[in-house]
């Protein structure tokens, strides 16, 4: 009896080990492959050249990516933090319960919508109806709606983790709600909020479908909000789809992975510093 169980156990254990190895294996495979084929093609020239008939550098794409990230954060972070503050600090009176339920439902639902649908919405609303055209602005507005749920949720968690005793102490000293939020609650919540922001950056950098349909595919540096501009992800997509240059595609993919890795490391570095 004991031996039979042992056999079954070991078999299952073996399967578990194997499946876990598949996970790591795939990761190593994809990273190695892309880096081996891509790193040789990354040069300073590649990173700093424009992209036109004579050059195939990716500087404009890097610039556009940063531009759209900053623009999206500029919209979504204040809105998201504001919404979270309202949900956590102002939710007592029973008359606002319906509103709060509606907001929570909206946040939940938004976070489940795939990016292609956001892209579709951005295309019809920002690009066409509001006449922004294919532009960084249209892209940033669309992206900010996409990352809003994450920012709201994470900020909410951060605010909730501030102990009530701080709030009581502040009110008892004659502080108003605003002052308490500004001077006590928000400062304590900042590490959590920062993590949310950094993770959102990662998501925006990796986003393709929504940006493709709203910020367009211009190969130049977007000089203003109304210009269209390709981001790194969109560039990789186009290179791969059109089969233009696989060398440059590998290089772009490698650059993308490196940027994401840096963003992730910053986020976890912050997280460990926060634990102090």
């Amino acid at each position, binding site marked *: 009896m004991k031996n039979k169980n042992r056999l079954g156990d070991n078999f299952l254990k073996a399967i578990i080990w194997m499946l876990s190895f598949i996970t790591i294996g795939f990761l190593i495979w994809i990273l190695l492959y892309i880096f081996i084929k891509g790193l040789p093609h990354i040069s300073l020239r590649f990173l700093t050249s424009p992209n036109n008939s004579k050059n195939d550098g990716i500087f404009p794409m890097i610039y556009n990516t940063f531009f759209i990230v900053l623009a999206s954060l500029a919209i979504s972070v204040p809105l998201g933090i504001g919404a979270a503050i309202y949900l956590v600090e102002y939710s007592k009176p029973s008359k606002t319960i319906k509103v709060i339920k509606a907001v929570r439902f909206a946040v939940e639902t938004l976070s489940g919508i795939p990016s292609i649908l956001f892209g579709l919405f951005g295309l019809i609303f920002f690009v066409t109806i509001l006449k922004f055209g294919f532009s960084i602005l249209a892209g940033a507005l669309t992206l900010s709606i996409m990352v809003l749920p994450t920012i709201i949720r994470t900020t909410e968690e951060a605010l909730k983790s501030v102990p009530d005793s701080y709030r*009581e102490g*502040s009110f008892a*000293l004659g502080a108003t709600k605003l002052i308490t939020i500004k001077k006590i609650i928000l400062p304590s919540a900042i590490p959590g909020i920062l993590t949310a922001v950094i993770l959102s950056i990662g998501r925006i950098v990796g986003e393709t479908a929504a940006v493709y349909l709203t910020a367009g595919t211009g190969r130049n540096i977007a000089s203003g909000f109304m210009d269209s501009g390709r981001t790194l992800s969109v560039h990789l997509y186009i290179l791969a789809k059109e089969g233009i240059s696989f060398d440059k595609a590998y290089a772009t993919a490698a650059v993308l992975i490196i940027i994401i890795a840096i963003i992730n490391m910053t986020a976890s570095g912050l997280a460990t510093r926060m634990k102090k």
Partner: protein
Amino acid sequence: MMNKIANDATNNVKFSAKQLNLWYGDVQALKDINIDIEENEVTALIGPSGCGKSTFIKTLNRMNDLISNVVIKGEVLLDGFNIYKDFDVVDLRKRVGMVFQKPNPFPMSIYDNVAYGPRIHGIKDKKQLNDIVEKSLKNAALWNEVKDRLKHNALSISGGQQQRLCIARVLAIEPEVVLMDEPTSALDPISTLKIEDLIHELKEKYTIVIVTHNMQQAGRISDKTAFFLHGSIVEYEDTEKIFSVPTDSRTEDYITGRFG
């Protein structure tokens, strides 16, 4: 229940509650409270858990406003003015400070903790703030222990020191009344005694109302004591009298430890 005003006619009345009733939703927590709290005295509120003493003290600085289903009937007067109708709550809390059971220093430096109150009430001048911080910490008997580490995080000092820091924080806004809700129940005996000494000094300048479940403490530091039971005040007397010859039998039972 009749309240008894002390025969000491030289002290003025600071707080006066008249027919104060309070409900948390359907549950009545305070029943027909009538009490006059005198200036520059230490008034202790004693009674078993859930008797309403904490609820009452939180009414005095309108901290009950923060709870959503509270209903209040009756009057509470500070210097003869109704604290709901005649005061803005921010102003009221500037005059009536509170120290909580568990020390709750803010996650900032010792200096910033004490300076928080004055800053939010408009004082920006550095020198003024420095003076206020020093004065408050001295009045809270904490200055000597922390004067070299004012910029250190307030959470780095001991529990007893943190509580004195909270007291200093309250003193910094120059209140007239200091409310204390079981201020030493989370502290060790030595810190407790230090704070009791502090309370004794503070009553020269401030009116102190202290909730305590420790009757020996009430006996040691207070001038008057009110015994709360099931939301009402059973007896309110000079401390000496209430602990030696209580009028009501329930008071006697509580004091002698028959319940509570």
